């Protein structure tokens, strides 16, 4: 398979569209946790019972379409090879927990990969809906439609007092986790982000580095999401999140301007060095890749690097992860082989821009 075709298949179709503020907000996501009333939660349910859940989903939703979400496909974890599961994880279509820790786990994915519904994860259902850029309201609206669609056939566990009942007390109520993935290179370079995080936490929102351990953000990509799910409506939660994201966008833009004014040559130097590393290295680790990609993306956004597609960060962050590299190589790769392969994939990808 050629690289172009591989990329075509590897990148979720929805990611190819450009959303609002997509120079800073990479994607918006809504996740809803739902459970059946009649069957114990996956944590304690017998495998047979969980199989019934899968069977019902298969009967009612497999190969179905709903509005613009076409051809849902039910994929059972037991039918996948380890590498295939890792790829779904790297595309954020399933969680590592679903891939490795569940009995009778499955996922229902729309053909645009915009909606993925995990079945028998920690909860019976985890509906996830993605939109490119900053579109939380729209994402919520669409996620509610999917939820209503499921609800036509399924009785969800719901209580007037506590709302949607979930396995973990941290999800009860709306069962909603709304999040945005943000690229914040200028706030990270100037370390302003470290001072902003505690203030954001105080509002009941969580900031975490997307690919790093704990709060370390590899590639300066941060995920901002709500913590509270009980006692606040979905709209209120989204409003809070939106106002914080607006503030972060504003601060990031301001920090970029300041960097340009005060240290343009240093910034330019950093960006082009990173570009050079991506273009010419023969060995590159994932962490360095992410850092260089972040710099190059900033260069593109600031107009310093021209004629490179704007979605390069989104695209290569996905493609250079271990499972994708191995799928492209069509064999298992040791860590050093991966670094060689990663460097070559990036070089080839950048050549496509020439």
């Amino acid at each position, binding site marked *: 398979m050629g690289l172009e075709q591989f990329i075509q298949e590897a990148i979720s179709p929805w990611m190819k569209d450009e959303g609002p503020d997509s120079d800073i907000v990479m994607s918006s996501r809504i996740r809803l946790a739902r*459970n*059946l*009333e009649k*069957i*114990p*939660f996956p*944590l*304690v*349910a017998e495998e047979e019972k969980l199989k019934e859940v899968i069977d019902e989903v298969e009967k009612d939703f497999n190969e179905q379409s709903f509005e613009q979400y076409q051809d849902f496909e039910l994929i059972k974890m037991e039918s996948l090879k380890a590498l295939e599961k890792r790829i779904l994880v790297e595309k954020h279509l399933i969680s590592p927990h679903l891939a490795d820790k569940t009995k009778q786990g499955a996922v229902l994915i729309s053909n645009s990969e915009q909606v993925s519904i995990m079945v028998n994860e*920690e909860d019976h259902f985890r509906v996830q809906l993605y939109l490119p850029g900053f579109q939380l309201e729209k994402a919520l609206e669409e996620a*509610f439609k999917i*939820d*209503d669609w499921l*609800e036509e056939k399924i*009785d*969800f*566990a*719901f*209580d*007037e*007092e*506590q*709302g*949607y*009942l*979930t*396995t*973990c*007390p*941290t999800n*009860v*109520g*709306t069962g*909603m986790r709304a999040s945005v993935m943000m690229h914040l290179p200028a706030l990270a370079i100037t370390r302003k982000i470290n001072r902003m995080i505690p203030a954001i936490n105080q509002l*009941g929102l969580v900031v975490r580095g997307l690919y790093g351990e704990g709060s370390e953000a590899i590639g300066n990509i941060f995920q901002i999401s709500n913590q*509270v*799910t*009980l*006692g*606040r*409506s*979905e*709209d*209120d939660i989204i409003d809070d999140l939106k106002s914080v994201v607006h503030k972060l966008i504003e601060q990031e833009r301001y920090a970029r301007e300041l960097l340009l004014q005060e240290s343009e040559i240093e910034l330019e130097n950093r960006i082009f060095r990173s570009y050079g590393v991506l273009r010419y290295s023969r060995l590159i680790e994932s962490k360095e890749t992410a850092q260089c990609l972040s710099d190059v993306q900033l260069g593109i956004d600031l107009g310093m690097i021209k004629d490179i597609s704007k979605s390069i960060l989104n695209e290569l962050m996905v493609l250079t992860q271990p499972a994708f590299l191995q799928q492209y190589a069509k064999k298992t790769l040791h860590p050093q082989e991966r670094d060689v392969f990663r460097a070559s994939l990036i070089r080839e990808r950048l050549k496509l821009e020439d």
Partner: protein
Amino acid sequence: MECQECNENVATLHFAKVINGEKTEIHVCEKCAKEKGYVNNEEEAYSLHDLLSGLFNFDSASYPNQAAMDTYRKEQLKCEKCGMTYQDFTRIGKFGCASCYDTFSKHLNPIFRRVHSGNTKHDGKVPKRTSSALYQKKKVDQLKEKLKAHIEKEEFEEAAMVRDKIKAIEKSHNQEGEGE
């Protein structure tokens, strides 16, 4: 009062147990309570301090007997549908099924308050079906069963809570009816 098991120590734990529908009062000392299995050993009794420990407040710690009794009562709670005990719940920090929420309801608000910035009551999306007349009737029937069970077991506090729920549903339903 003397401990009815050893007849030596002062009975510091007093509680009622229902055996074959008969209510029996039990007065024991702490030592016997543990030995005879009225309460679990210290370690287990305070396993609340494990994983979710931060979530559980021992505000009654200054009244050790009261605390031990509360712990004892809580630990007897077991969800009939999935078999999860309150102790399991505090250890793993997860519910076993939808019914666990009802079974442990008396002890959940402090946990919810901690996790959800002081909130205990849902605000937001409601399943469409929940507002349908059929669903409402089913729900009220279920609650009436529960109310009966609580009254039979003389659990009046719980019974009152269930009765309020029924009233709330019937009231909201009637209001909808008037609008038609």
